[in-house]
């Protein structure tokens, strides 16, 4: 491969990582919420809420890091609506999640109209890690990124450890597999579910905020463009494992980056057919993932979507 081709490939893969990071946070968050037994289909809504607050705060304070944190918190707060309805009030989780998505898209379109076409004065920049960024090929792809991407690498590792190697991990898995047994073990099932649903919201907010403060740096109505639903699909692709989520998120980040690069290069393939690819591929992958999950008897957490009613023996 000649030098230009290599540099194009590196640019493409570095964009892949950044585009994948938008999906990585919400996917990790939903994995933990689902592991604890709460299905939250409101990811799309929480992502766009995070994206909107992240953008507005970054714009007004000129501090994109503050915007990121506020966007993340906004996603967390939005998730509490779903938590309250599905945990305390034992409502239908599918419909409540959909309502949260409609809510997020509606409210951000309502307040967001006057922000359309504004561009952030200050966005999050890449900071090369000394040493690591000098590794040929790998360095510029993974270690010439921004702090939030580095944060996401650490997050994947930490969350994997929490899930499989710590007590809170055992508790949250128990809450999703068999709530009554978890309760008998002394786990506060509903508190556990609240906590991880909130975590899921924080992560969705983080993904959205990353989209507006680092990736796109402008605001557009419906800017998330269905990424929340791709994240829901990635949870199954990842088989509820945070490390697999990283692979899945980068895979789709790659498709997104590639179709974008192709469109920018002025190809003759119609742009609508290129824009369709991430959704079409997710569609195909979800079918394959379902078949694999079934063949290996991996399956979703057993009590996913089932409210826990302690007083009913």
């Amino acid at each position, binding site marked *: 491969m000649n030098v230009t081709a290599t540099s194009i490939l590196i640019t493409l893969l570095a964009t892949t990582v950044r585009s994948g990071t938008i999906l990585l946070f919400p996917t990790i968050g939903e994995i933990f919420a689902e592991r604890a037994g709460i299905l939250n289909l409101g990811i799309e809504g929480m992502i766009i809420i995070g994206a909107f607050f992240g953008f507005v705060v970054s714009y007004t304070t000129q501090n994109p890091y503050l915007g990121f944190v506020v966007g993340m918190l906004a996603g967390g707060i939005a998730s509490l609506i779903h938590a309250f309805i599905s945990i305390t009030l034992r409502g239908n989780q599918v419909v409540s999640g959909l*309502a949260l998505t409609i809510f997020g898209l*509606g*409210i*951000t379109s309502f307040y967001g109209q006057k922000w359309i076409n504004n561009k952030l004065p200050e966005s999050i920049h890449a900071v090369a890690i000394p040493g690591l960024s000098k590794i040929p090929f790998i360095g510029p792809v993974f270690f010439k990124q921004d702090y939030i991407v580095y944060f996401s690498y650490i997050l994947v590792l930490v969350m994997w450890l929490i899930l499989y190697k710590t007590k809170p991990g055992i508790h949250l898995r128990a809450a999703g597999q068999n709530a009554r047994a978890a309760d008998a073990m002394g786990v506060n099932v509903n508190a556990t579910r609240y906590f991880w649903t909130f975590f899921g919201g924080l992560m969705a907010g983080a993904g959205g905020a990353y989209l507006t403060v680092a990736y796109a740096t402008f605001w557009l109505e419906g800017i998330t463009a269905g990424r929340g*639903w791709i994240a829901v699909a990635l949870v199954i692709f990842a088989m509820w494992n945070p490390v697999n989520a990283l692979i899945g998120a980068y895979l789709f980040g790659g498709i997104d980056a590639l179709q974008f690069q192709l469109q920018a290069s002025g190809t003759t393939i*119609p742009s*609508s057919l290129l*824009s369709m690819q991430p*959704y079409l591929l997710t569609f195909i992958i979800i079918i394959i993932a379902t078949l694999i999950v079934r063949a290996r008897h991996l399956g979703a957490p057993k009590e996913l979507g089932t409210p826990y009613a302690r007083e009913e023996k």
Partner: protein
Amino acid sequence: MLLFEKRETVSTKLKAAIPLVSVFLGLVTGAIAILFTRTNPIIVYQALVKGAFGSVYTFSETLVAAIPLILISAGLIVAFRMNFWNIGAYGQYIIGAIFGSFFALNMPATMSRPLLLTIICLAGFLGGALWGLIPAALKAFWEVNEVITTLLLNYVALYILKYLMYGPWRNPESHGFPLSKPFELNAQLPRLLPRTRIHFGIILGIIAVIIVYIIIKKTKFGYEIRVIGENKRAARYAGINITKNIFIAMAISGGLAGLAGLAQLSGVIHMLQIEINPGYGYTAIVVAWLASLNPIIAMLISVAFGGLEAGGYQIQMAIRVPFGIVGTIESAVLFFLLGGEILKKYRIKLRRNIL
């Protein structure tokens, strides 16, 4: 702390009160959201009501917006009753519109109008049904999660529409705009009242509601989908053919969404374009749920929500309140409704913490 006591019976009063109170609280939430923009919510709501029910013409526009909601929600009710989460009405609507348009745009202008209208309506239904059968088959054979598949297919459908409009189906005389040729008169559903846009689709909607009502209340299929919805394992033990029922339910559900899309084109827009209002597919979910999956009540709620949509467009144009307020109100109504449903199952008492 909250104490939950199981209820044995639910009074009709309570059943009716929950959705009504939910709508009220949804409007209050919308008012709070409006307050944050330093606008008087009373003025906004007055304009909204006026824009929806204020005159014969605005009310007719409310009914025009209600037509797709009536058709789609009737179909969704069939799927939701069996716990099949068809979130794909958006895409089924688009594909139905595309299928119907194919015949509307390619048949001779001299063809008899009733014949061509029958063909395009059937094509619209068929298109939506086929798009709905994809997730149905995946669910029936491999248990692929239908929420995700129906949703992803919405985006695929949207990009198919965009592809056609920017590519092969674009009218060469549209000066580069992504519009098809206009429908000839024989491909336009008749308008029912002079000086309004109320079209024959409303009759199709009423027929659909009656048929769906009969299907779910009086037929073996209706009974079977209810059993499947309540307890899939019990249904299997009882020898109910789940695969067959999923296929039939999704053919009806997708088909009616497709018919709604086609009716919107043939009755209102009169050409294929990118903006054909598939968002009704999401609003209809709220309608179906608010109606407790009863198609006749859903028809009435469709008129109310048609008013919200029509009024929402009016306030956007007249007093520049963004249309997003409509989605905000709709979702708030749904939140209160879902939360309120617990009152049907439990009596809730507040107990001071004794710990």
